[in-house]
């Protein structure tokens, strides 16, 4: 692939990705809408003074950063991705192989690569799966790390920590664990103002977890609940120091 063709291909992917990423913000950028976009990121509102001279003041969540900083980050992200794509497209092996490829396979391969590349930058997981952004291990959420455990009480009165990965293996990998913990975080962390329907949803979920735990381990549970631990890197605990006493629990229905 020639230098110009490689550059054109990379520019096309990067421009399409930038356009797709900025699309949800268009009304706001044009001044037609003052409400925050709900797709791709949280509201673009700076909540605290941010200074580049003290980078620790930069919020971890992109939605809490000033618009200029988010834009600079997006430019850097596109530049980095573009650099690797250009390096690949310029290599003789990739260039000659794709230049010689003809027919519908060339088009399908191009569509797959463009969707994958645009998905990295501007994918919306709920809509564009499997062409989604890859942003793992990026930034530490604000506040003390919180660890929730699901704990059960067995028929002989023992308290056990439920292995959610095993109990919810049907969802694959750690998805079941993450899904349950996300819902727990949304309900248990809230105060009494939480609607009863949410509590009922959590109760139903934990009943299902209890049934699946029994199905996998053969150990019956009489009660199931949630234990919340607020962690601190400065004064770390050990596993044995973490209590199994539930913050909230419910009776397991037969």
């Amino acid at each position, binding site marked *: 692939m020639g230098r110009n063709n490689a550059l054109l291909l990379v520019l096309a992917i990067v421009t399409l990705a930038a356009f797709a990423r900025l699309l949800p913000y268009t009304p706001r950028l044009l001044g037609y809408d003052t409400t925050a976009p709900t797709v791709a990121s949280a509201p673009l509102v700076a909540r605290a003074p941010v200074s580049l001279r003290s980078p620790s003041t930069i919020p*971890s969540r992109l939605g809490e950063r000033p618009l200029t900083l988010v834009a600079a980050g997006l430019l850097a*992200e596109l530049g980095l991705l573009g650099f690797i794509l250009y*390096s690949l497209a310029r290599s003789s092996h990739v260039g000659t192989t794709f230049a010689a490829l003809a027919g519908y396979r060339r088009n399908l391969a191009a569509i*797959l690569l463009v969707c994958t590349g645009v998905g990295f930058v501007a994918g919306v997981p709920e809509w564009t799966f499997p062409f989604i952004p890859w942003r793992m291990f990026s930034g530490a959420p604000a506040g003390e790390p919180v660890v929730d455990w699901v704990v059960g009480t067995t028929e002989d009165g023992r308290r056990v920590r439920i292995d959610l990965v095993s109990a919810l*293996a049907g969802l694959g990998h*750690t998805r079941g664990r993450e899904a349950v913990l996300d819902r727990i975080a949304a309900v248990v962390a809230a105060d009494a103002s939480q609607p009863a329907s949410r509590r009922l949803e959590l109760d139903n979920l934990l009943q299902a977890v209890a049934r699946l735990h029994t199905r996998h381990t053969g150990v019956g549970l009489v009660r199931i609940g949630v234990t919340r631990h607020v962690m601190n890197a400065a004064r770390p605990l050990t596993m044995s120091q973490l209590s199994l006493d539930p913050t909230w629990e419910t009776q397991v229905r037969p």
Partner: protein
Amino acid sequence: MSSGARIQRGAVALAALRIWVFGLWTVKLFATPVGEIGLLPRAMFEPIGLLRLFPGSLMDVVLAQTFLDVARPILIGLCVAVALALPPYRVLSVTAALGLTLWQTLSRSVGVVNHPEVTLLLATYAIVIFPAADRLAPLRRRLYDASTYDAGVLVAALVVLLPYTASAGYRMAHHAWATLHSQIAPDLLLRQGFGNGVAWFAEVALTHPLVAAFINLGAVVTTLIEFAAPLAIVHRRLRWPIATFMVTFHVLMYLLIRVMFWETALLVPAVLLAVQMTECSEGTTQS
């Protein structure tokens, strides 16, 4: 090496990837009790991706344990048939890819759209687009030109390795300060280590400054190597060092915080080996 031998080699490399990719799906389907999705509360599911096109009544059918219990062996059969390149290959491979996409979409319709299996799914699309059943198959088919097979292998390698660049690029562009200043690793160790009940390393790392410093340095080095990972496709000298690093990285992540992308860990060396095969044949032809 003759042009014919070069084509043969490319066809074998792509066919070997077909067996590997659909073999991994087969193992994965055997190991996953898919039917148990039907035992979870219906309220937990909010369709994503393709499933958004399904009417609610159809979702009820799809989420029924009976349907899932029947669909799983069918999907296993499809994956085995495609791995073995049984006829009618094209129909079977497209159906299998569609079925796998629906399964993966369904298992993410619980509010957690995470990344394990995504590279395997993208590599599946590459296998289905290109003629991956022309060798290592019961029927010997007419061969295409070498670039067709080489392109298939390259596309599979790109979709497996480019996500590393995307992840590292995002971290470098938006969270460079946090990555450089030890904010991510301790948080990850606390949340995931204690959350998954494998806190022995978190306990050691958080109480021994030297270990913590090593972990933080590791986070920076890993980010840089992740970013450069796709260059292993085009630079022979980088190929096996990067492959070794990435596999080690995945194994370490499992040991430390029980997060394992084993499909990707098994795909990286496989796609790079396939690239090496096509590249060797090309180099020999040129000489």
